[in-house]
């Protein structure tokens, strides 16, 4: 098992290294010069050259790459765990990602958890009673929710629940702006507020995160229901279920066996849906004024902030690879055939 994990970790590191190289060179093909944003109205050739030097963009590309990797003596780089400083804020990219990433992970994890809690029972019931009321409702929901992009649903939910019914707070981030949030320990506000006994912040964060989580759950659950339903239906029609029924086992016990078989492929789906939700975070975060890694990536790209783009891509890729790795490990634990 350890060999399998180490092998997967090695592959993940190689993937990240390749990604770092590709991103570094690809963003430099973007059709704009980031120095222009810095110098602004002070765009004399001398001032331009000064800013270019300050960013290190006056050096040959290969030297810039060496500096990015940390191979030059001047400053630490990627190999030393240093992602550089943002050209927009001047802050270390690692520190900025350290704030943005937990928020995204928090929202995406909550959304995934809620989606699974809803989708698995609904999928099972749909499979157990095809064309029943729940099955038909789930089918319509899947079509309906998937027919519009998540940001559209987000705006609609804000209009309905926040501005019309007043049930949800206005999209002002993850906590009431008038509250002073707790110190960051994990970066997850729900966790940090509990750890520091800040129940006012905890309740506020629950309230503020409800709509963005609902938006993600609403759009992604339909697809999960459909997949759980299909996997369960396939399991229910398998020979071992037929044998169990022929043996006269109670239907509840048969369903439990079928569920175990159906959940194995569903586990793989968790990894896929985590990535789906990570990409959905880009628009959902913008709509709900959440300063997560999605927002951070968009801002970085629009500002041609090379260090921030590089850092955000690596961070998101790392999270996605980690989730896939965890899923694969659990999968391998459940299914010994996969361990090779």
């Amino acid at each position: 098992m350890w060999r399998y994990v180490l092998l997967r970790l090695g592959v993940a590191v190689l993937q990240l290294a390749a990604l770092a190289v590709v991103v570094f060179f690809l963003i430099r093909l973007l059709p704009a010069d980031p120095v222009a944003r810095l110098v602004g109205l002070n765009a004399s050739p001398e001032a331009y050259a000064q800013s270019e030097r300050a960013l290190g963009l006056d050096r040959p590309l290969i030297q810039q790459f060496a500096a990015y990797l940390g191979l030059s003596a001047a400053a630490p780089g990627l190999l030393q765990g240093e992602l550089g400083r943002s050209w927009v804020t001047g802050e270390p990219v690692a520190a900025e990602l350290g704030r943005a990433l937990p928020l995204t992970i928090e929202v995406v994890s909550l959304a995934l958890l809620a989606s699974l809690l809803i989708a698995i029972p609904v999928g099972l019931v749909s499979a157990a009673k095809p064309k029943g009321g729940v099955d038909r409702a789930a089918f319509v929901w899947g079509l309906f929710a998937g027919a519009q992009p998540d940001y559209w649903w987000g705006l609609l939910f804000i209009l309905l629940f926040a501005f019309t019914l007043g049930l949800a707070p206005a999209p002002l981030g993850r906590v009431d702006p008038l509250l002073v949030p707790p110190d960051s320990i994990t970066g997850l506000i729900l966790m940090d507020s509990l750890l520091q006994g800040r129940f006012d912040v905890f309740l506020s964060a629950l309230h503020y995160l409800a709509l963005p989580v609902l938006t993600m759950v609403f759009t992604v659950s339909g697809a999960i229901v459909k997949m759980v339903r299909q996997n369960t239906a396939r399991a229910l029609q398998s020979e071992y279920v037929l044998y169990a029924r022929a043996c006269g086992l109670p239907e509840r016990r048969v369903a439990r066996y079928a569920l175990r078989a159906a959940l194995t492929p569903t586990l793989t789906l968790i990894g896929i849906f985590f990535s789906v939700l990570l990409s959905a975070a880009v628009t959902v975060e913008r709509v709900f004024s959440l300063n997560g890694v999605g927002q951070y990536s968009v801002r970085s790209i629009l500002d041609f902030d090379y260090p921030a783009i590089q850092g955000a891509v690596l961070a998101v890729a790392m999270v996605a690879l980690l989730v896939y790795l965890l899923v694969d490990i659990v999968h391998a634990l459940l299914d010994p055939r996969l361990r090779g």
Partner: protein
Amino acid sequence: MRLYRTALVVVVLAACLLAGRATAERALLVLSEGVPASLDVDGPAGNHDPSQTGFLNIIEPLVDYVVGGVNDDGVQLYDFTRFAPRLAESWHYDPDTLTWTLTLRRDVKGCNGATFDADDVLYSFARAKSLSGVAPVGWFLGNVASIDGFTKALLQNTQQARAARELGDEIQKLDAYTVTIRQSAPNKLFLPALTIYGLGIYDQQTMQAHATAADPWSHGYAGSVNAPSFGPWCVERWRKEEVFAVKANPDYYRGTPYFDRVIMRAVPQSANRVGILRTGKAQFVEGLSPKEYAFLERSSGIKVSGAYLNGSLILLANWKSPPLDDPRVREALAYATPYADLVRGAYFGAAKQWHGLIPSEYPGYVRPAATYRYDPERARALLAEAGYPNGRGLEQFAEAFKLSYALDRENTLGPVATQLRTALRRVGFPVQLDPLPAVQLADRQLVKKDLPLSLYDGLTPIGVDVAYALLLSFITPPAGLNNMTNFSDPVVDEMFDKALVEPDPALRHEYLASAQEVLARRLAFLPLAEFEVRWATAPDLEGLTLHPTQSVPWYPLRLGQGAP
């Protein structure tokens, strides 16, 4: 039992008192597209609007403009012909030695308890001259104001230039509350430059406490943690792209601010800012589109205020892009533009046609003789005269008629661009829309200067002076700084040079008026409209002041009649 009861009463009373204190606090919630990205004036965020709001409210200047009248919307305006003392209590200029003597205010305390004196001024100017920041705005303003030693030679990448970046005797401390600043030449832009945040004063004691060997001028600290100064607000909480909260400086020398706390929250979607304001949760919203302001004007319980100063919409036609270099083609563009439709359709009436190329609210503005109105027949005639009857032949210049504008300004500039394209195509110009990311647009407008045709609404000369505006946009490079259309005219250059050193106000005005006439006649760029800078607020919020940065100083804000 009695003991328990007494204890319970005490706890309840304490809770009530604490709750009372909490509700008694005056907090202002400001919603904006973003929050300051940096408070380092020489840092990477000098051109970022929310950062300018941060600079304006945190970093105290030596000099400011005197407040003037109030417009019909209740917006406080400045009198840009007179300067008001801020950290400098008074000043005196000696033309023989080109030296300004500034007498500094005493008993001024910063947020960290530091007392302001001449060392803070010396530190701030030395920092500006060090060119240690990625975008040296302080040096730029010193150069614009002809402060001795703040030359372009400092920007060279040589040992000699690096050595010259240390502050010399051009700025001297005579005593703890008197400094002198020497100019290299007479230059009327000295005081206007001191009003701009780039030459604002940092609290050197706190800054130096956060300096490191690698960052001796504390750019990292000012860029990410705090900008210690002597202003009305102290940074309390700052999460980039999320929230910027400040609390009142109780020792502020002009008096404690009305609000105890101001919280600036980033809400990127303008529609959400509108919605939140309507719920009453926020008191101040900025950065909406003209359409959204027009909508809010009709909403009850919300006040939309605005004022004219330097909000302008221009069409930049590049002098190096044929056929836009032909004066007849440029004039045809000017006559083909439906000014009234733009004002009505894109700005919902909160704008007016701009006659001239200097903001009409600036002292020294003259309405030039050459003005343009919508006259498509005349535009067609001019095009025919230029050899393009009904636009025939212009198709070979397809690239020149790609109308660019900033993609992130789509809400505002999109409708303008669409209206303009329709009107120009009607006359025969083969215009296509080409929205670009803001950085790409800036690169081509400001650095490469190769964009043939573009719409721009961000030209805001924050030094309120005709000569400063000329220097920024119209003077021939390399002296000219930001000449986006590659315009060059020897008369304009000469008039500018004369005005810069002319001590007689009447003569100076005459020079600057002549330059303005040339700019309008030759259409250095095409002025389309001047628009109101607007904000939507709670109805009882008073004290809105329009600053040349188009940011709002929070210090004068207060709740009016009926407010708790």
